Protein backbone atom coordinates (compact mmCIF):
# COMPACT_ATOMS: atom_id res chain seq x y z
CA UNK A 1 0.00 0.00 0.00
CA UNK A 2 1.30 3.42 -1.00
CA UNK A 3 0.89 5.54 2.11
CA UNK A 4 2.18 8.97 3.09
CA UNK A 5 1.30 11.66 5.60
CA UNK A 6 2.21 15.25 4.89
CA UNK A 7 2.14 17.99 7.52
CA UNK A 8 2.35 21.32 5.79
CA UNK A 9 3.08 24.41 7.88
CA UNK A 10 0.80 23.47 10.78
CA UNK A 11 0.39 26.14 13.43
CA UNK A 12 -1.84 26.46 16.48
CA UNK A 13 -2.52 29.56 18.48
CA UNK A 14 -4.95 30.18 21.32
CA UNK A 15 -6.00 33.79 21.98
CA UNK A 16 -2.81 35.60 22.93
CA UNK A 17 -0.78 32.37 23.19
CA UNK A 18 0.98 30.73 20.26
CA UNK A 19 1.43 26.99 20.86
CA UNK A 20 3.57 26.03 17.85
CA UNK A 21 4.08 27.20 14.31
CA UNK A 22 5.32 26.00 10.93
CA UNK A 23 5.32 22.26 11.63
CA UNK A 24 6.10 20.36 8.43
CA UNK A 25 7.02 16.75 7.77
CA UNK A 26 6.44 13.95 5.30
CA UNK A 27 6.19 10.37 6.59
CA UNK A 28 5.77 7.21 4.48
CA UNK A 29 4.62 3.61 5.09
CA UNK A 30 6.64 1.86 7.73
CA UNK A 31 8.13 5.09 9.10
CA UNK A 32 7.76 6.45 12.62
CA UNK A 33 7.50 10.15 13.45
CA UNK A 34 8.33 11.14 17.03
CA UNK A 35 6.93 14.40 18.40
CA UNK A 36 8.73 15.51 21.54
CA UNK A 37 9.00 18.61 23.69
CA UNK A 38 8.51 19.84 27.23
CA UNK A 39 5.13 19.98 28.98
CA UNK A 40 2.86 22.55 27.37
CA UNK A 41 4.81 22.61 24.12
CA UNK A 42 1.79 21.33 22.17
CA UNK A 43 2.41 17.59 21.62
CA UNK A 44 -1.13 16.60 22.59
CA UNK A 45 -2.50 19.61 20.70
CA UNK A 46 -0.78 18.40 17.54
CA UNK A 47 -2.21 14.91 18.11
CA UNK A 48 -5.69 16.42 18.49
CA UNK A 49 -5.24 18.31 15.23
CA UNK A 50 -4.22 15.14 13.40
CA UNK A 51 -7.34 13.37 14.77
CA UNK A 52 -9.48 16.37 13.64
CA UNK A 53 -10.63 17.00 17.21
CA UNK A 54 -9.50 20.62 16.84
CA UNK A 55 -8.55 22.75 13.85
CA UNK A 56 -5.10 24.19 13.23
CA UNK A 57 -4.83 27.98 13.12
CA UNK A 58 -3.05 27.59 9.80
CA UNK A 59 -1.48 24.88 7.69
CA UNK A 60 -2.80 21.54 6.53
CA UNK A 61 -2.21 17.80 6.74
CA UNK A 62 -3.00 15.15 4.17
CA UNK A 63 -2.95 11.36 4.34
CA UNK A 64 -2.47 9.78 0.92
CA UNK A 65 -3.60 6.15 0.59
CA UNK A 66 -2.77 4.95 -2.93
CA UNK A 67 -4.56 7.57 -5.06
CA UNK A 68 -6.85 8.90 -2.30
CA UNK A 69 -6.02 12.15 -0.49
CA UNK A 70 -7.71 12.45 2.89
CA UNK A 71 -7.69 15.24 5.42
CA UNK A 72 -9.45 16.33 8.61
CA UNK A 73 -12.56 14.27 9.48
CA UNK A 74 -12.25 11.95 6.45
CA UNK A 75 -8.95 10.80 7.91
CA UNK A 76 -10.47 9.53 11.15
CA UNK A 77 -11.55 6.17 9.72
CA UNK A 78 -7.88 5.35 9.12
CA UNK A 79 -6.59 6.29 12.59
CA UNK A 80 -5.89 4.09 15.58
CA UNK A 81 -5.40 6.29 18.65
CA UNK A 82 -3.91 5.64 22.08
CA UNK A 83 -4.09 8.78 24.20
CA UNK A 84 -4.78 9.87 27.77
CA UNK A 85 -7.58 12.02 26.28
CA UNK A 86 -9.36 8.96 24.90
CA UNK A 87 -11.29 7.12 27.61
CA UNK A 88 -13.37 3.96 27.17
CA UNK A 89 -16.68 3.18 28.85
CA UNK A 90 -16.20 2.05 32.47
CA UNK A 91 -19.72 0.63 32.67
CA UNK A 92 -19.14 -1.72 29.72
CA UNK A 93 -16.90 -4.77 29.61
CA UNK A 94 -13.78 -4.69 27.46
CA UNK A 95 -15.49 -6.90 24.85
CA UNK A 96 -18.61 -4.72 24.89
CA UNK A 97 -16.43 -1.63 24.34
CA UNK A 98 -14.70 -3.25 21.38
CA UNK A 99 -17.98 -4.53 19.91
CA UNK A 100 -19.57 -1.11 20.32
CA UNK A 101 -16.79 0.81 18.56
CA UNK A 102 -16.78 -1.78 15.77
CA UNK A 103 -20.56 -1.47 15.39
CA UNK A 104 -20.71 2.30 15.50
CA UNK A 105 -18.01 2.57 12.84
CA UNK A 106 -19.66 -0.11 10.67
CA UNK A 107 -16.90 -2.70 10.83
CA UNK A 108 -17.05 -6.44 11.34
CA UNK A 109 -16.61 -7.72 14.87
CA UNK A 110 -15.07 -11.18 14.87
CA UNK A 111 -15.05 -12.50 18.44
CA UNK A 112 -12.27 -15.04 17.82
CA UNK A 113 -9.93 -12.43 16.32
CA UNK A 114 -10.77 -10.03 19.14
CA UNK A 115 -10.03 -12.64 21.80
CA UNK A 116 -6.62 -13.17 20.19
CA UNK A 117 -5.95 -9.43 20.16
CA UNK A 118 -7.01 -9.15 23.81
CA UNK A 119 -4.53 -11.91 24.68
CA UNK A 120 -1.82 -10.20 22.62
CA UNK A 121 -2.10 -7.01 24.70
CA UNK A 122 -1.94 -9.01 27.92
CA UNK A 123 -5.62 -9.01 28.89
CA UNK A 124 -6.32 -12.67 28.14
CA UNK A 125 -9.29 -13.96 30.16
CA UNK A 126 -10.28 -10.44 31.29
CA UNK A 127 -12.35 -9.42 28.25
CA UNK A 128 -15.61 -10.00 30.12
CA UNK A 129 -14.65 -7.71 33.03
CA UNK A 130 -16.01 -4.20 33.36
CA UNK A 131 -13.46 -1.59 32.27
CA UNK A 132 -14.24 0.29 35.48
CA UNK A 133 -12.63 -2.57 37.39
CA UNK A 134 -9.40 -2.36 35.34
CA UNK A 135 -6.18 -0.80 36.62
CA UNK A 136 -4.82 2.21 34.70
CA UNK A 137 -2.25 -0.05 33.02
CA UNK A 138 -4.95 -2.50 31.90
CA UNK A 139 -7.00 0.39 30.50
CA UNK A 140 -3.96 1.52 28.53
CA UNK A 141 -3.56 -2.02 27.15
CA UNK A 142 -7.24 -2.05 26.15
CA UNK A 143 -6.73 1.21 24.24
CA UNK A 144 -4.05 -0.58 22.19
CA UNK A 145 -6.51 -3.38 21.54
CA UNK A 146 -9.10 -0.90 20.24
CA UNK A 147 -6.54 1.04 18.22
CA UNK A 148 -5.26 -2.11 16.51
CA UNK A 149 -8.68 -3.74 16.04
CA UNK A 150 -9.42 -1.87 12.82
CA UNK A 151 -5.92 -2.38 11.37
CA UNK A 152 -5.39 1.37 10.94
CA UNK A 153 -3.07 2.89 8.37
CA UNK A 154 -2.11 5.63 10.84
CA UNK A 155 -1.33 4.68 14.44
CA UNK A 156 -1.13 7.73 16.73
CA UNK A 157 0.30 7.17 20.22
CA UNK A 158 0.23 10.00 22.76
CA UNK A 159 2.32 9.05 25.82
CA UNK A 160 2.43 5.44 24.56
CA UNK A 161 3.82 3.79 27.68
CA UNK A 162 1.89 5.78 30.29
CA UNK A 163 0.86 3.54 33.22
CA UNK A 164 2.48 0.45 31.69
CA UNK A 165 4.88 -1.92 33.45
CA UNK A 166 8.07 -3.26 31.83
CA UNK A 167 6.20 -6.04 30.00
CA UNK A 168 3.68 -3.49 28.77
CA UNK A 169 6.50 -1.29 27.50
CA UNK A 170 7.90 -4.30 25.65
CA UNK A 171 4.48 -4.87 24.10
CA UNK A 172 4.38 -1.25 22.89
CA UNK A 173 7.86 -1.55 21.40
CA UNK A 174 6.74 -4.66 19.54
CA UNK A 175 3.58 -2.97 18.25
CA UNK A 176 5.51 0.07 17.04
CA UNK A 177 8.14 -2.10 15.40
CA UNK A 178 5.68 -4.37 13.58
CA UNK A 179 3.08 -1.83 12.41
CA UNK A 180 3.05 -1.70 8.63
CA UNK A 181 1.53 1.75 8.30
CA UNK A 182 2.67 5.08 9.73
CA UNK A 183 3.21 5.51 13.48
CA UNK A 184 3.21 8.91 15.18
CA UNK A 185 4.51 8.99 18.75
CA UNK A 186 4.11 11.97 21.06
CA UNK A 187 6.37 11.47 24.02
CA UNK A 188 8.78 12.89 26.55
CA UNK A 189 10.41 9.56 27.39
CA UNK A 190 14.04 9.45 26.28
CA UNK A 191 13.81 5.72 25.50
CA UNK A 192 10.88 6.35 23.13
CA UNK A 193 12.68 9.03 21.14
CA UNK A 194 14.73 6.21 19.60
CA UNK A 195 11.62 4.79 17.91
CA UNK A 196 11.53 7.63 15.39
CA UNK A 197 12.79 7.61 11.82
CA UNK A 198 11.97 11.33 11.91
CA UNK A 199 11.34 13.69 14.76
CA UNK A 200 9.72 17.02 15.50
CA UNK A 201 10.89 18.90 18.58
CA UNK A 202 8.27 21.34 19.86
CA UNK A 203 8.92 24.26 22.20
CA UNK A 204 12.54 24.68 21.26
Amino acid at each position, binding site marked *: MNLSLTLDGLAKEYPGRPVFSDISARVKSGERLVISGPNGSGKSTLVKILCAFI*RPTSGNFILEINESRLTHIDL*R*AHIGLVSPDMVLYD*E*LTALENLAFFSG*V*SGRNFEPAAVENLISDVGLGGRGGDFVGSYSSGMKQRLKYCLALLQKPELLILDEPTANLDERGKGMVEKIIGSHEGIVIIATNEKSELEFGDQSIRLGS
Partner: protein
Amino acid sequence: MATNPSGSAAKALALFLKDLKSELRTRYAINAIAMFAVVTVFAVSWAIKGTGLSADLQASLLWIVIYFSSLSGLAQSFIKEEESRTAAALRLYASSEVVLLGKLLFNLVLLFGLNLITIPLFAIFINFDVVNFPLFFTVLIIGSLGLAVVTTFVAAIISKASVKGALFAVLSFPLILPLLVMAIAGTKKSLTEGLSFAAARMEIQVLIAYLIVMAVLSFMLFDAVWND
Protein backbone atom coordinates in the same frame (compact mmCIF):
# COMPACT_ATOMS: atom_id res chain seq x y z
CA MET B 1 -10.19 -2.78 6.55
CA ALA B 2 -13.40 -4.88 6.60
CA THR B 3 -16.56 -2.83 6.37
CA ASN B 4 -20.11 -3.99 6.91
CA PRO B 5 -22.71 -3.02 4.33
CA SER B 6 -24.77 -1.60 7.18
CA GLY B 7 -25.65 2.07 6.92
CA SER B 8 -26.09 4.89 9.35
CA ALA B 9 -29.24 3.33 10.85
CA ALA B 10 -27.40 0.20 11.99
CA LYS B 11 -24.54 2.28 13.41
CA ALA B 12 -27.00 4.57 15.21
CA LEU B 13 -28.73 1.47 16.59
CA ALA B 14 -25.35 0.32 17.99
CA LEU B 15 -24.99 3.68 19.76
CA PHE B 16 -28.57 3.53 21.03
CA LEU B 17 -28.07 0.02 22.42
CA LYS B 18 -24.80 1.11 24.09
CA ASP B 19 -26.54 4.10 25.69
CA LEU B 20 -29.44 1.92 26.81
CA LYS B 21 -27.08 -0.66 28.33
CA SER B 22 -25.06 2.08 30.07
CA GLU B 23 -28.21 3.74 31.35
CA LEU B 24 -29.66 0.52 32.75
CA ARG B 25 -26.37 -0.09 34.57
CA THR B 26 -25.76 3.42 35.89
CA ARG B 27 -29.31 4.92 36.07
CA TYR B 28 -27.71 8.26 35.22
CA ALA B 29 -30.81 9.82 33.60
CA ILE B 30 -33.70 7.48 34.45
CA ASN B 31 -33.63 8.27 38.17
CA ALA B 32 -33.51 12.04 37.58
CA ILE B 33 -36.42 11.96 35.15
CA ALA B 34 -38.59 9.55 37.13
CA MET B 35 -38.03 11.33 40.44
CA PHE B 36 -38.87 14.73 38.96
CA ALA B 37 -42.07 13.40 37.36
CA VAL B 38 -43.25 11.54 40.46
CA VAL B 39 -42.45 14.36 42.91
CA THR B 40 -44.10 17.01 40.72
CA VAL B 41 -47.30 15.03 40.22
CA PHE B 42 -47.58 14.30 43.95
CA ALA B 43 -46.90 17.94 44.82
CA VAL B 44 -49.61 19.14 42.44
CA SER B 45 -52.00 16.44 43.64
CA TRP B 46 -51.40 17.52 47.25
CA ALA B 47 -51.92 21.19 46.37
CA ILE B 48 -55.24 20.71 44.59
CA LYS B 49 -56.51 18.18 47.18
CA GLY B 50 -58.87 16.36 44.82
CA THR B 51 -60.57 19.46 43.41
CA GLY B 52 -61.16 19.26 39.67
CA LEU B 53 -58.88 21.28 37.43
CA SER B 54 -59.97 22.87 34.17
CA ALA B 55 -58.81 21.33 30.88
CA ASP B 56 -56.54 24.37 30.45
CA LEU B 57 -54.74 23.74 33.73
CA GLN B 58 -54.55 19.97 33.27
CA ALA B 59 -52.99 20.30 29.82
CA SER B 60 -50.54 22.98 31.02
CA LEU B 61 -49.50 20.94 34.06
CA LEU B 62 -48.95 17.81 31.95
CA TRP B 63 -46.61 19.57 29.52
CA ILE B 64 -44.82 21.47 32.29
CA VAL B 65 -44.05 18.16 34.00
CA ILE B 66 -42.96 16.55 30.71
CA TYR B 67 -40.79 19.56 29.80
CA PHE B 68 -39.01 19.96 33.14
CA SER B 69 -38.58 16.21 33.63
CA SER B 70 -37.00 15.99 30.19
CA LEU B 71 -34.73 18.94 31.05
CA SER B 72 -33.43 17.02 34.04
CA GLY B 73 -32.60 13.89 32.09
CA LEU B 74 -32.33 14.23 28.33
CA ALA B 75 -29.16 16.34 28.37
CA GLN B 76 -27.31 13.60 30.24
CA SER B 77 -26.56 11.49 27.17
CA PHE B 78 -24.16 14.12 25.81
CA ILE B 79 -23.02 15.56 29.15
CA LYS B 80 -21.99 12.11 30.35
CA GLU B 81 -19.85 11.54 27.22
CA GLU B 82 -18.00 14.83 27.83
CA GLU B 83 -17.66 14.48 31.62
CA SER B 84 -16.41 10.89 31.49
CA ARG B 85 -14.13 11.88 28.56
CA THR B 86 -15.49 9.16 26.28
CA ALA B 87 -16.52 11.76 23.67
CA ALA B 88 -13.09 11.67 21.98
CA ALA B 89 -13.39 7.96 21.20
CA LEU B 90 -16.96 8.46 20.00
CA ARG B 91 -15.83 11.33 17.73
CA LEU B 92 -13.05 9.17 16.31
CA TYR B 93 -15.19 6.12 15.56
CA ALA B 94 -18.68 7.49 14.80
CA SER B 95 -19.81 10.03 12.23
CA SER B 96 -21.78 13.03 13.46
CA GLU B 97 -25.04 11.86 11.84
CA VAL B 98 -24.72 8.49 13.58
CA VAL B 99 -24.16 10.22 16.93
CA LEU B 100 -27.17 12.50 16.47
CA LEU B 101 -29.43 9.63 15.34
CA GLY B 102 -28.32 7.32 18.14
CA LYS B 103 -28.65 9.93 20.88
CA LEU B 104 -32.01 11.09 19.50
CA LEU B 105 -33.33 7.53 19.49
CA PHE B 106 -32.17 7.05 23.08
CA ASN B 107 -33.76 10.34 24.21
CA LEU B 108 -36.99 9.41 22.43
CA VAL B 109 -37.15 6.14 24.34
CA LEU B 110 -36.45 8.00 27.61
CA LEU B 111 -39.15 10.56 26.83
CA PHE B 112 -41.77 7.96 25.93
CA GLY B 113 -40.79 6.09 29.09
CA LEU B 114 -41.37 9.33 31.00
CA ASN B 115 -44.80 9.64 29.37
CA LEU B 116 -45.62 6.09 30.44
CA ILE B 117 -44.93 7.12 34.05
CA THR B 118 -46.47 10.59 33.96
CA ILE B 119 -49.81 9.96 32.25
CA PRO B 120 -51.05 7.15 34.54
CA LEU B 121 -49.96 9.26 37.56
CA PHE B 122 -51.94 12.18 36.17
CA ALA B 123 -54.96 9.95 35.57
CA ILE B 124 -54.83 8.64 39.16
CA PHE B 125 -53.87 11.73 41.16
CA ILE B 126 -55.01 14.74 39.08
CA ASN B 127 -58.27 13.27 37.75
CA PHE B 128 -56.92 13.65 34.24
CA ASP B 129 -59.85 12.83 31.99
CA VAL B 130 -59.05 12.33 28.30
CA VAL B 131 -62.12 12.60 26.07
CA ASN B 132 -60.58 12.27 22.61
CA PHE B 133 -57.87 9.58 22.84
CA PRO B 134 -56.72 9.66 19.17
CA LEU B 135 -56.19 13.43 19.42
CA PHE B 136 -54.49 13.18 22.81
CA PHE B 137 -51.99 10.55 21.66
CA THR B 138 -51.35 12.32 18.33
CA VAL B 139 -50.44 15.55 20.14
CA LEU B 140 -48.44 13.66 22.76
CA ILE B 141 -46.40 11.71 20.18
CA ILE B 142 -45.68 14.63 17.83
CA GLY B 143 -44.97 16.95 20.76
CA SER B 144 -42.61 14.42 22.36
CA LEU B 145 -40.79 13.93 19.04
CA GLY B 146 -40.26 17.69 18.75
CA LEU B 147 -39.17 17.96 22.36
CA ALA B 148 -36.67 15.12 21.92
CA VAL B 149 -35.19 16.64 18.74
CA VAL B 150 -34.66 20.07 20.34
CA THR B 151 -33.36 18.83 23.69
CA THR B 152 -30.94 16.41 22.00
CA PHE B 153 -29.52 19.17 19.82
CA VAL B 154 -29.28 21.71 22.66
CA ALA B 155 -27.68 19.04 24.89
CA ALA B 156 -24.91 18.61 22.32
CA ILE B 157 -24.32 22.39 22.30
CA ILE B 158 -24.12 22.77 26.07
CA SER B 159 -22.22 19.56 26.84
CA LYS B 160 -18.83 21.32 26.59
CA ALA B 161 -19.87 24.32 28.70
CA SER B 162 -19.07 24.71 32.38
CA VAL B 163 -22.57 25.73 33.61
CA LYS B 164 -24.48 23.05 31.76
CA GLY B 165 -27.75 22.96 33.71
CA ALA B 166 -28.51 26.66 33.58
CA LEU B 167 -27.40 26.96 29.96
CA PHE B 168 -29.58 24.02 28.93
CA ALA B 169 -32.71 25.64 30.36
CA VAL B 170 -31.86 29.09 28.99
CA LEU B 171 -31.13 27.81 25.47
CA SER B 172 -33.89 25.26 25.20
CA PHE B 173 -36.81 27.26 26.62
CA PRO B 174 -37.15 29.84 23.80
CA LEU B 175 -36.76 27.06 21.22
CA ILE B 176 -39.35 24.85 22.87
CA LEU B 177 -41.88 27.58 23.73
CA PRO B 178 -43.79 27.36 20.38
CA LEU B 179 -44.01 23.57 20.80
CA LEU B 180 -45.26 23.89 24.38
CA VAL B 181 -47.93 26.43 23.41
CA MET B 182 -49.26 24.24 20.60
CA ALA B 183 -48.99 20.99 22.56
CA ILE B 184 -50.90 22.52 25.49
CA ALA B 185 -53.60 23.88 23.15
CA GLY B 186 -53.92 20.52 21.37
CA THR B 187 -54.00 18.55 24.63
CA LYS B 188 -56.63 20.90 26.04
CA LYS B 189 -58.89 20.15 23.06
CA SER B 190 -58.45 16.41 23.64
CA LEU B 191 -59.71 16.94 27.21
CA THR B 192 -62.73 18.99 26.17
CA GLU B 193 -66.15 17.41 25.55
CA GLY B 194 -67.66 17.74 22.07
CA LEU B 195 -64.50 18.61 20.12
CA SER B 196 -63.53 16.40 17.19
CA PHE B 197 -60.01 15.57 15.94
CA ALA B 198 -60.43 18.22 13.23
CA ALA B 199 -60.83 20.92 15.88
CA ALA B 200 -57.11 20.63 16.64
CA ARG B 201 -56.00 20.59 13.01
CA MET B 202 -54.11 23.88 13.32
CA GLU B 203 -52.20 22.77 16.45
CA ILE B 204 -51.22 19.46 14.84
CA GLN B 205 -50.10 21.16 11.63
CA VAL B 206 -47.92 23.60 13.59
CA LEU B 207 -46.46 20.75 15.69
CA ILE B 208 -45.61 18.75 12.55
CA ALA B 209 -44.09 21.81 10.84
CA TYR B 210 -42.09 22.59 14.00
CA LEU B 211 -40.84 19.00 14.17
CA ILE B 212 -39.74 19.02 10.53
CA VAL B 213 -37.98 22.40 10.80
CA MET B 214 -36.16 21.47 14.00
CA ALA B 215 -35.15 18.03 12.70
CA VAL B 216 -33.76 19.50 9.46
CA LEU B 217 -31.90 22.26 11.34
CA SER B 218 -30.47 19.75 13.81
CA PHE B 219 -29.13 17.50 11.06
CA MET B 220 -27.73 20.49 9.14
CA LEU B 221 -25.98 22.06 12.13
CA PHE B 222 -25.01 19.08 14.25
CA ASP B 223 -21.77 18.32 12.43
CA ALA B 224 -20.41 21.78 13.30
CA VAL B 225 -21.64 21.49 16.91
CA TRP B 226 -20.14 18.04 17.44
CA ASN B 227 -16.85 18.44 15.61
CA ASP B 228 -15.89 22.08 16.26
